[in-house]
């Protein structure tokens, strides 16, 4: 399967460092909370924010590496947000299975939902809304990038 002349593996290669960034923030958030760090500090390491910053970075990468166009930034945004939501759902599932507590099941984030409802919310509406927001943001950024920082066309080098 190809998106804008690039295969899924090409996209994965481009996104791997950003998946790493989201995973790192997710892990740090868990560790900080388990270590008893203040909630204000834990909030700083937001997986949602990491996803948003990753979308920003991938849009810049796609533009400056001439990786592709709007289809590619939308696909990348979906993948990054999907991955972030999957990690959150995993953390909630882990808390449910092991009967432990972590930051992702804190009352201020779960809104008194059951574990199942909470996981379902992340994998349905939150996934869709955040993906659409991320895709919109990525398209707007790419549009502005093309306007503000246009790249010169590649020159053919001929003997």
């Amino acid at each position, binding site marked *: 399967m190809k998106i804008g002349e690039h295969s899924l593996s090409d996209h994965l290669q481009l996104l791997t460092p950003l998946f790493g960034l989201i995973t790192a923030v997710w892990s740090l958030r868990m560790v900080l909370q388990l270590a008893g760090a203040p909630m204000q500090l834990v909030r700083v390491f937001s997986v949602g924010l990491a996803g948003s910053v990753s979308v*920003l970075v991938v849009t*810049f990468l796609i533009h400056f590496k001439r990786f592709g166009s709007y289809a590619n930034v939308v696909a990348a945004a979906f993948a990054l947000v999907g991955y972030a939501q999957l990690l959150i759902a995993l953390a909630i599932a882990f808390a449910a299975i092991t009967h432990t507590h972590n930051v992702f099941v804190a009352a201020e984030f779960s809104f008194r939902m059951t574990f199942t409802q909470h996981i379902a919310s992340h994998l349905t509406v*939150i996934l869709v809304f955040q993906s659409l*927001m991320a895709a*919109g943001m990525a398209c707007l950024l790419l549009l*502005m990038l093309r306007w*503000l*920082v246009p790249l010169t066309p590649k020159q053919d080098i001929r003997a």
Partner: protein
Amino acid sequence: MRGKLQPVVVFLGAGILLYLGRHLLRESELVTWGLTFGGTTAAGLLGMALYRVQLELRASRQELAMKQAELNFALQVQRALFPREFPADRGLEFSGVCVPARGISGDYYDVLLLPDGRLVFAIVDISGKGISAAILMSSLQAVLRILAGAGHSPGEVCSKLNLHLNQITDGGRFATIFYAEWNPAARLLRYVNAGHNAPLLFEEGAVLQLAPCSPPLGLFLESEFRVSERVLKPGSVMALYSDGLTEAGIDHDREFGESRLTALLTEHVCKPLAEIQHHVLDSVHQWAGLEFEDDLTLLLVRATEFQKEAL
């Protein structure tokens, strides 16, 4: 077909997910996401704008550096058009300086030794400043040297220069010139002053002005250039200058002025020419600052004893 199906599948999937989770969304979460994504977008746009500004600054810096390098090169080329050394032992000694107002000059002075032993010297001021004046100056310099070298009289040289300038500028630009031919054996100076600032002649304690009697070059297709003559006594000093000297400081409503120049030269007229030139430039700098409004040129000429055996 597959390409068209992809977005349909994506939107269908999104619709199904939204339907399934329709009761699981809190309004406060939407606000949080909006702030997160909106803030990130704003930060990204700010970064882009700053990057763009930086790019443009860098580009304009490069362009400026390139133009400066071109101007420096043009200045080097123009310096080569001025005399590098003055002829000696011909009954006249010289000292000259040209200070451009905008990197390169529209003023010009020259001193030529003709094969028959006569000397020709001239000072030219092209109307306007900067690159266009400098281009016209280099053209006039080339033509003047050819005409003078061919042995034409001062009147003929000015007449042909007038025709040349009028043709290349369609009468849109003009130049003032003081062109003189010196016969060392007869101590005779034959000159044309075509609209140029009257050179000052210091002779036996008196100050005379060699006032213009002809129109500037280039204004009219056909002009008459009147040749005047004067015998110069040893010790006489002539100061040929462009209006950039006397009009220095005009932007601040305080011209250096002809009377100040005359007084200064009278005070130092007995000194060596290079020293006089130094005094004049120093005074003008003190009067008008380091930046001049117009190109400034000064050519000092002193008549000396002439030995016929030197020929």
